């Protein structure tokens, strides 16, 4: 499964938000963690892509007045999504071993 760097971040954010992962929440978490505010367009585009790739599952929640009567869409990390994150991380660590003086595993830091 190939995913891009931004998609990876979105996947991580959805995973860490647990059951409360919907558009605005993901956006705020990403803004908080990375310091960059992603646009809603970019975020939704990535969410749809990840759903197509099978990394995310979605379900619709209830409508609230503060959202102009529109419903929320909640996302859940799937097993495939998890595997993809593991795979991406493994690749990263494997590469880092080839680079002298660079150690990416957290436990030895």
């Amino acid at each position, binding site marked *: 499964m190939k995913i891009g760097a931004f998609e990876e971040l979105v996947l991580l954010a959805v995973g860490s938000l647990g059951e409360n992962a919907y558009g605005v929440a993901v956006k705020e978490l990403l803004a908080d963690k990375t310091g960059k505010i992603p646009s809603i367009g970019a975020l939704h585009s990535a969410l749809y892509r990840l759903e197509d790739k099978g990394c995310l599952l979605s379900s619709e929640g209830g409508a609230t007045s503060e959202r*102009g009567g529109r419903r929320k869409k909640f996302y859940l990390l799937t097993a495939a999504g998890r595997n993809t994150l593991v795979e991406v991380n493994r690749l990263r660590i494997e590469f880092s071993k080839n680079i002298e003086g660079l150690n990416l595993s957290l436990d030895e830091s």
Partner: protein
Amino acid sequence: MNPEKRFHVASPPRWVDRILQWFCAEEVIETLQGDLHELHRKRAQSHSKFKADFYFILEVLDVCRLFALKRKSRSNSNYTAMFKNYFKVAWRNLFKYKMYSSLKIGGFAIGISAFLLISLFVKDELSYDKNYKNGHRIYRVLNVSSDPSDPGKGTAFPAEIAAVIRDNFPEVEKAGRIIPYPGWWDSGNNQFRREDQKQNTYEEGFAYLDQDLLEILEIPMVYGDRTRALEKPNSMVISKSKADKYFPGEDPVGQTIILNEDESTPFLIGGVMEDFHTNAHLQFDFFITLTGKEFWPGEQTNWCCWNYNPYLLVKEGTDPGDLEDKLLLIRDNFIVKYALEQGDKRAEETKQYFSLELQPVSDIHLKSADIHDAVTRGDIRIVWLFVAIAGFVLLLGCINFINLSTAKSANRAKEVGLRKVVGSRRWHLVQQFLSESMMFSAISVIIGLLLAWIMLPFFNLLSGKILFIPWMAYWFAPLILIFIMFIGLLAGLYPSLYLSAFRPIDVLKGSLSQGSKSSKLRAAMVIFQFTTSIVLIVGAFMVHRQMDFILNKKLGFDKEQVLMIQGTNTLGDKLPVFKDELLTLSQVQNASVSDYLPVTGTKRDGNSFWKDGRSKMDEGINAQRWYVDGDYIDTMGIKLLEGRGFSDMASDSSAIIINQTMVKKLKLENPVGAKIMNWQTWNVIGVIEDFHFQSMKKEEIGALSLVRGNFGSVLSVKLRTIDMVGTMQSVNSVWEEFMPNQHIRYTFLDDNFTQMYGDVKRTANVFTAFSVLAIIVASLGLFGLSAFMVEQRGKEISIRKVLGASFQVIFQILTLNFLKMIVISLVIAVPLGYLIMEEWLAGFKYRIPIGWEVFAIAGIMVLFIAMATVSYESIRAAVVNPTKGLRSD
């Protein structure tokens, strides 16, 4: 509370919301809009309404991404699926009814290929002289005479014309002249050699030209400077192909050329021009400069003799009509003045009848039918005639398609009914049948293109052109596509409307009688097809007959077995000896030296004649004066009616022989012994019978006189032999003795004669070719219809046979209907063909009458072809075992 208030205030701007709803797809808008609104509210609370709105707009713009946009096509997938289905059904039908399909496509393809070929021809004809940068400012000057006794337009003017125009009319930028007349000194053809070589070669395509005309006609140069190439006296410009022939691989500018062994006036090459494009009205290989040229003392300023064709380049914005009016100054100040000086009584009349006209250069090729000039050109009428014929052949192909489609409609009726029952609208069915006809037209156009490609070499032979299909041109593929659509629409519109109109209830109940509707229309179309075919066949016959008539008419001279040895002027003093030597050959009956021959491309010499002593009183008559030697009359087989021919007597230097027309025009009662004059006095010693010395298309036999001369570049030799090869060898060996450095060059008088009527011959050939195509297409259609009718009446025929009908009766039943149609076509075609041919023949001075037998032959031919076509299926039906037809139900 404040937050409460803000809560209400802070909704995003409505118009931005609307935009979002407009472009966003239904399935993403829900959560997207929700997220955007939530964000907006948060921003409005934490910052300000203005900032929140601003970010909202930015975010909405950012949402314009692929995932969010509405997908139009998705809702139309049904549409493409239907088209797929239409084509599938069309394709299956194509193979299910192979015979009808091939008839439709065959007729179509033939019509299309004919149309394509003619289009190429017309495109070429229309492309003449269109490529000048300043084309809209280039004009040819014409002299126009409206004198009722001698009307006409010409291109020739006295020598000074260009200088006078240049000096007097500031709106003229450049004026230049050309002398294109073969036989005018070195104009026409010459023996050509490099100064440093001995071998002479015969070359054609010489003309005298002004330096200015080189620039006016924007003649592209390979070597040398266009603005100076003809500047020096005795300079010459030659074409690229001739430069490559005589100076391969070098720049010939500055080299010296000798013409006709005349070493006293060598010519200097001042430049090399690109070969003339085939679609230029002028076609020359050698231009000799007119700079410093004077053909006789005072010639350049004398207004006596009209031999120069002037062209003008006018300044931008000049109105040709205004300039034409101003040019009348030339008439009054020069032409009339000269006539007055000469004591011409008709000088004042000139003012009344004479005018000048400016003809745009791009009109010269096609719009000069009424102009007397020295240019080989096309005729706009022939172009339109060809267009009409091609259009008709194409139309015949379309009619086949329409007829066969509607005739076979019963096969599709059930399909139409069913489609309507399951929800097709009429428009859908029209679409279906149109796409089907598009498919047919596409297949036919492709086959037609291939056919055209195969037939192109033959068509080039017929039309006398070098055409090719511009496969690679950027406009070709789109044009063919448009053509396919156009033809598809033309042929498919009626059948599609017809077929789609079936009512499902009738069709599915089976009460629709098969193809019976519109049989009258079908009959009308068949009649149209055969009328066209008959007219074309009549046309082809008439054109051929007119050709034969001209070529075999009693001409007044004998064109058979006359060999014309060209280029004998280079023999110089040895010419009489050469002639005597030839006469010793047993196969040679007679020989004569003269440049004046009764075929085009030889010399002509117009003169005014009067009865002796009346030149100041009477109007002169215009007559040819030909220089011939003493053997001319015998060699040409011209009949001497009175008096005698030339003898060697010294007094014959002022002897003249005239033809009957001249006797009549001069009103001589006792011609032999009479005295007549032009600028000298002549004694008439004989009268000859009129003979045709001009094309019989336009002119009647004019007045003609023969005077004594022993010079010329053509030696005509009358032969009496059946062994042409052996004779030519003997003649050649005599020639080699005299002129080892120059190849013998000869033509036959009858060949030259035939060439005079080349365009008539081409018209005849094209007519024949297209009438054959038309009858093929029409027959294909008729064959299809007869097959259909036999199929439809199969049961009826079987029952009749069972009840005892004979073969003849069945045959009659099946063919009578078609016979009627052919007879009606004939009735329409006869007057139509008569009118058209009468119109065409009116262009000939000597023409055949239109006889009824032509129509009879054409009618019988068409009848025979049509009956043969219809009979095939009819006979098959008449002899088949009736059980076969009745077994099926």
